[in-house]
């Protein structure tokens, strides 16, 4: 008979079988009755001698079928029925697991994508960023100057390829609508070939084009081509105007999400000949990227370049060259944040799994009567296990599918948080390995805790189970449940303490005195082509024009932006010997007259700049309190004289700096992020700038009488009235800007906080479930106690005490773990000790309250048990 025929006649065959067995039994009964037995006795004897009808029938049917598949189908439909019958359990378990899987796969994918995935270039492990470091100068990330690079390039024996680049500056794009700033990255010959980059359209620069300085051809990024040039397929040959230059587009680069993704155009960087500012040894602003030869270790290459750099004149004797793997260099310092978030999310998964384990175990105990019945009806061990595992699989499959959805959308959401400024987020996708790993944990937990109870069902005795159903449980389970509660609470405590520490750090950072008043303040970055004192007319017009606008209190210019950054300088003193290798560093800033009045920075001593501090008057400088404290301890700096070696990019003169008189001391402005310490800083009138660099780029600051955003349009219009081709980029309030500098902190806090809340909620749910379950097992006991005179209050407190005991153990375990974990966290903390008592105690109180809340329903039921009913069940 073909299997297809079997399939059709199967039903018929089974019917025959049942009838046959029925006939057999009847014939036997008749025979027994003929021997004089009563009908009832005969029926019983016939059945006993026949054996287990259901089991034998099933076994006979199995002969025909594919027993595994058929019983599997039966199990699946039974499992579905079970899920429908207890929707509360099913939904809770599925949601908890889905949450765990979703959040984890999203975060793991994020971390994998950003931190682990190799760069998409050939042999990425041989690509390094080259930095110098000097302990004497206290700087571990010194960039290279033009001559440094030429020395590396000509003398090294370790690199198959080495290139320098300027990674972020701007051009003004004119001639097509409102003038715009475009982001530029510029690289010397060799970068593209080193990274194996081929043009998307047209061509890249030819070797011939790296032999002259004039920019007549330009290569643009994929992003610029798509967003600004309308994906024009005939873009090659198109002429655009940058910086008053006419340039012909010769090529479009492919999408490069890993390499300076914000870049619009990639002008060439010519090394020989070179611009004059590239020829000074001390003008260190270039990034260097190299590919080491096969077989050369980073240490060998470092030694090679260190030797080259030390041979140059004027380098500090302890200067060393460091190679940083290019990926780490591009990713920057987010790895601490990401690793901590990953650890947090793993804890959430752990709590979720513990919760589901508890749910499954509690359910299996509830079902022990059903299982005992099935065992005594002849269900085999494998068969029972198969069914439980099918149920477990059903739960995990549903949870994982939901989890994948959640992870997918979660990841999308992270991609939409641009203010976080995570590197490499482009092309972020749910990672198959991350997903598999998390799903595997979830499935393994579900299956394991579905399977564990099946081991005990064998020991169940039907009659005792049916009789003492309510008293089941047993000591082993009780202890096991306690461990689950403790584990959950411990995880929740670790997360709450960490979130608490971050929250307190965030609060502290927000309440740092920035040294200026960011409210009612507007700022915009202005880039011009004025590289000479000819630009001063433009800046004066801008200052005067904007200051005269209605609603403007004052306006100022500076080449630094408070809260964002300042260039670096070194100081020369005329009252002490100066060691040229160890000049003390300071942040340097060229400002207009009203800078401090506009920023709202208090004067501590001396005076602000006045109109008299101009190009023709003796040069002056204002220092911040930290400079005074560090370089003139116990002295009055007013009237002292210093020279300022301005080492920021764009300096166009190497002449020795003029000596300046200190005329004022101001409060410390946070020139970096709020959580960085206030460094020594010096401020100089921009009209007294002997380097001329500042003529090109300045930020305009406007203090307004009311909401600064209402001024944005009039400021823009006024600047365009002065110079129609001047791009006026992002007009932003200082508060915005400050908020952005806090974004990484805010997001780590938000994520960790969300995970902590999740863990606490899950722990509450788990505690509730387990305590309720344990109490329901003891209802008779409570009834007896009540009958013996226990008060409601004492029963309630008994249940709550049990819950609190577990919570206390969990909190102690969690706090100890948190002590260990917080070492990793310390890098993200600000003015908060990793042992912060407030965070620890509030986490403990939070968990205690939560667990009391979770115990209350069970306690209430225990104290309202009806003794009569409880005893009747006995």
């Amino acid at each position: 008979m073909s299997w297809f025929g079997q399939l059709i006649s199967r039903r018929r065959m089974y019917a025959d079988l049942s009838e046959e067995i029925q006939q057999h039994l009847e014939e036997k009964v008749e025979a027994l009755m003929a021997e004089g037995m009563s009908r009832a006795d005969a029926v019983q004897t016939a059945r006993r001698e026949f054996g287990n009808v259901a089991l034998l029938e099933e076994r006979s049917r199995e002969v025909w079928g594919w027993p595994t598949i058929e019983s599997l189908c039966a199990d699946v439909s039974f499992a579905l029925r079970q899920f429908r019958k207890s929707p509360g359990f099913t939904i809770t378990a599925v949601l908890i697991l889905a949450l765990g899987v979703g959040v984890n796969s999203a975060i793991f994918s994020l971390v994998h994508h950003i931190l682990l995935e190799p760069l998409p270039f050939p042999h990425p492990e041989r690509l390094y960023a080259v930095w110098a470091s000097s302990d004497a100068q206290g700087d571990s990330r010194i960039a290279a100057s033009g001559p440094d690079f030429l020395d590396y390039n000509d003398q090294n024996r370790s690199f198959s390829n080495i290139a320098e680049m300027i990674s972020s500056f701007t051009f003004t794009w004119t001639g097509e609508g409102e003038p715009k700033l475009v982001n530029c990255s510029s690289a010397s010959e060799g970068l593209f070939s080193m990274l194996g980059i081929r043009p998307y359209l047209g061509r890249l620069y030819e070797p011939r084009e790296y032999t002259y300085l004039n920019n007549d051809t330009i290569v643009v990024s994929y992003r610029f081509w798509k967003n600004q040039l309308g994906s024009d397929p005939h873009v090659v040959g198109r002429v655009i105007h940058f910086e008053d230059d006419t340039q012909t587009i010769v090529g479009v680069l492919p999408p490069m999400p890993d390499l300076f993704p914000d870049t619009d155009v990639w002008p060439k960087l010519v090394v020989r000949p070179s611009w004059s500012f590239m020829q000074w040894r001390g003008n260190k602003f270039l990034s260097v990227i190299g590919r080491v030869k096969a077989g050369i270790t980073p240490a060998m290459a470092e030694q090679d370049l260190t030797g080259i750099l030390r041979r140059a004149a004027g380098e500090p004797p302890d200067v060393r060259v460091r190679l940083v793997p290019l990926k780490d260099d591009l990713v920057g310092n987010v790895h601490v944040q990401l690793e901590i978030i990953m650890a947090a999310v793993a804890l959430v998964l752990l709590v979720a799994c513990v919760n589901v384990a508890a749910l499954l175990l509690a359910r299996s105990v509830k079902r022990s009567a059903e299982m005992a019945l099935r065992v005594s009806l002849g269900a085999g061990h494998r068969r029972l296990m198969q069914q439980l595992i099918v149920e477990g699989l059903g739960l995990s499959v549903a949870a994982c599918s939901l989890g994948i959805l959640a992870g997918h959308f979660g990841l999308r959401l992270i991609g939409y948080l641009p203010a976080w400024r995570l590197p490499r987020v482009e092309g972020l996708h749910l990672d198959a390995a991350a997903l598999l790993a998390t799903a595997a944990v979830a499935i393994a937990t579900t299956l394991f805790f579905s399977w564990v109870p099946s081991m005990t069902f064998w020991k169940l005795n039907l009659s005792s189970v049916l009789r003492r159903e309510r008293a089941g449980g047993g000591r082993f389970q009780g202890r096991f449940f306690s461990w689950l509660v403790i584990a959950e609470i411990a995880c929740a405590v670790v997360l709450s303490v960490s979130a608490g520490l971050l929250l307190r750090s965030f609060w502290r950072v927000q309440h740092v005195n920035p040294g200026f008043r960011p409210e009612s303040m507007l700022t915009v970055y202005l880039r011009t082509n004025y590289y000479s004192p000819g630009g001063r007319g433009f800046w004066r017009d801008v200052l005067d024009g904007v200051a005269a606008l209605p609603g403007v209190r004052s306006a100022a210019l500076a080449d630094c932006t408070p809260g964002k950054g300042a260039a670096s300088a070194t100081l020369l003193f005329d009252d002490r010997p100066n060691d040229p290798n160890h000049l003390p560093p300071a942040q340097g800033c060229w400002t207009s007259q009203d800078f401090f009045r506009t920023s709202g920075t208090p004067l501590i001593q001396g005076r602000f700049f006045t109109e008299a501090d101009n190009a023709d008057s003796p040069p002056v400088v204002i220092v911040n309190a930290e400079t005074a404290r560090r370089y003139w301890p116990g002295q009055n700096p007013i009237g002292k004289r210093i020279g300022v070696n301005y080492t920021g990019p764009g300096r166009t003169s190497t002449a020795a700096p003029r000596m300046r008189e200190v005329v004022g001391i101001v409060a410390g402005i946070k020139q970096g992020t709020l959580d960085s310490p206030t460094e020594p800083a010096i401020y100089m009138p921009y009209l007294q700038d002997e380097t001329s660099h500042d003529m090109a780029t300045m930020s305009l600051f406007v203090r307004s009488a009311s909401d600064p955003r209402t001024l944005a349009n009039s400021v823009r219009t006024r600047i365009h009235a002065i110079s129609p081709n001047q791009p006026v980029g992002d007009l932003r309030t200082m508060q915005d800007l400050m908020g952005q500098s806090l974004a990484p902190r805010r997001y780590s806090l938000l994520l960790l906080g969300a995970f902590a809340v999740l863990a606490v909620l899950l722990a509450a749910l788990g505690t509730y479930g387990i305590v309720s379950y344990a109490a329901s097992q003891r209802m008779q006991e409570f009834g007896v106690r009540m009958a013996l005179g226990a008060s409601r209050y004492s029963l309630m407190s008994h249940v709550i005490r049990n819950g609190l005991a577990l919570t206390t153990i969990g909190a102690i375990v969690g706090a100890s773990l948190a002590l260990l974990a917080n070492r990793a966290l310390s890098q993200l903390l600000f003015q908060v000790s990793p042992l912060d008592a407030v965070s620890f105690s509030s986490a403990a109180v939070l968990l205690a309250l939560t667990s009391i809340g979770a115990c209350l329903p069970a306690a209430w039921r225990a104290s309202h048990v009806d003794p009569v009913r409880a005893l009747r069940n006995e």
Partner: protein
Amino acid sequence: MPIGPEKKAAQRDLFRGALEMMILQSLRRQPMHGYALVQHIRQRSNDLLQVEEGSLYPALQRMLKEELVKAEWEISATNRRVRTYKISARGLKHLERELSSFERMLTAINLVLSPAKG
């Protein structure tokens, strides 16, 4: 007496081949239905073989599937609708083979178990 799963399985396996042989041998004599088969085996063994009656049916189904026997619904002498099993040609061949190998084995076991000669 509670019967553990292992014990049950062992019993089933032990009787598998033997039960099949007995059934085929009985059917070679004359076609029979299930109840009659049980009675027949019991009588022929002088009630020494206490076969669990039901265990006959999985064995019969197996043999049906392997086409060692054929089954048809008939009306019995006692006017009962019964399913009568007949041995097939293939069943006969199978029985011969099984019997000869069983006899060989029995002889071998006998030789081993009988007291040593000289």
